[in-house]
């Protein structure tokens, strides 16, 4: 039963792979762009979970992204994209508890 489910889930992924389509377009997988450690852009995020000047937690599809750093500002936020500037020290990914 379990094997079947994973196989079923993998079909669109396989199609995307054979057709050479970027996965983040088909599925809402977050695309993260960084400019050195000063600017970070995340597309396809879901929401902000926590915002402090030294820590930002975001939720995305199936995962939680946690940024640590200093002077973290959100320069722009829309429903699809978020841009964070500041001194980023680390990025952590973890499975979202739901």
């Amino acid at each position, binding site marked *: 039963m379990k094997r079947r489910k994973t196989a079923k889930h993998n079909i669109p992924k396989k199609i995307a792979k054979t057709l050479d389509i970027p996965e983040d377009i088909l599925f809402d997988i977050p695309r993260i762009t960084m400019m050195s450690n000063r600017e970070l852009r995340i597309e396809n995020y879901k*929401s902000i*979970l926590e915002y*402090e000047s030294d820590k930002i937690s975001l939720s995305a599809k199936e995962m939680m992204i946690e940024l640590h750093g200093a002077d973290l500002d959100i*320069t*722009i936020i829309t429903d699809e994209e978020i841009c964070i500037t500041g001194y980023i020290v680390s990025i952590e990914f973890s499975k979202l508890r739901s």
Partner: protein
Amino acid sequence: MSVPALISYFRGYLTITVTGRFCERFINVCAGRKILLWDIKKISPYSVRCKISVSAFKKLASIAYHTGVAVHINIKHGFPFFLRKYKKRKIALFGALIFLIAVIAANQFVWDIEVRGNYKIPEEKIITALNESGLKIGMPISRIDQQELKKDALLKIPELAWLWVEKKGSKVIVDVREKIEVPEMFSPSDYCNIVASKDAIIENMTVKNGVPVVEKGETVLAGTVLVTGKIPVPAKMLDRYVRADAEILARVWYDRREVFSKISTTRHETGNTKNHYTLHFLGKDIPLFHKNKSPYKEFDVTEKRYTLFGLGFTKKSYEEITLQEEFLSDGSVADFGAAQIMQKLEEEVAPNSTLKSSEVSYTVLNDSTIEVCVKAEYLENIAIAQKEEVPEGLN
């Protein structure tokens, strides 16, 4: 300022502070409802400062209520707020309006006339001719008839080949082209004699047309006829008149004397400078904090002029200099003088002449002056054509 920043400036935006325990929720809801927030900054554990456009701010009330935060406006940015501030100041607005009207009104009149392209004809002559034709400083720009002015001015100043009046804002630019003088033309059928241009001894004659009157080795005075265009035809008992043509090489002597000073003055800058500013308005000069007099005894002056809407502005920079006198030796002054005299002579002699010999001598007149004497011998073409009238009833 970037383009988005400029747009938001014209639309107006606010800096707000969001205070509450659920600032993140507030931001999430705003993002979800497509309300744009930018430059979000955490300023304390329970408050966030961000920027928002004026139109989006009106939608915040219900979001703030539902997310349990308080929203305060800190700063209002942008043009709409600037305008609102000045709405109450009616007089200032009125002043700005008057200024605008004055600028527009001032642009409807001729403030300045500039003449371009003239070399020999003085600017004043062109401007007075145009004044008479109806182009005056202070007249409305719209009443300038370019075609009419062109016709009038070209008739008044025959030396001009072309003229055009160009309107450029409140300035009128008169572009002119001068006529090139037509050299005196001889037609091949004219009766012409060749005469001597200078006193000389004839060295060589090459006669192409006409009958030579003088011979080789003869001494001639300026104006003597050398070759005549009157050719006798014995068979018909009458004369034929032709255009004489000849090249006559002759030895010409020049004797030039000039007095030169032994004192040479050199100018040195002292480094002191002073600027004088003058305002020009409607043909009047208004000196600004000076009396139109040079502050120094010996000086160099440079002038720069700026004009705008008939309002002229001149900057005169005076540079103080000192004169240093120096005595030169007799020989060096003689050399210098001789070179100068020779230079003048070169311009005087006919082209393609050759210098045969020259002699320089000088006499000391007094302590500070020297008379330099140059004797030079040139071999030059002394032939010049002179037009003659064919006697009546002949030819």
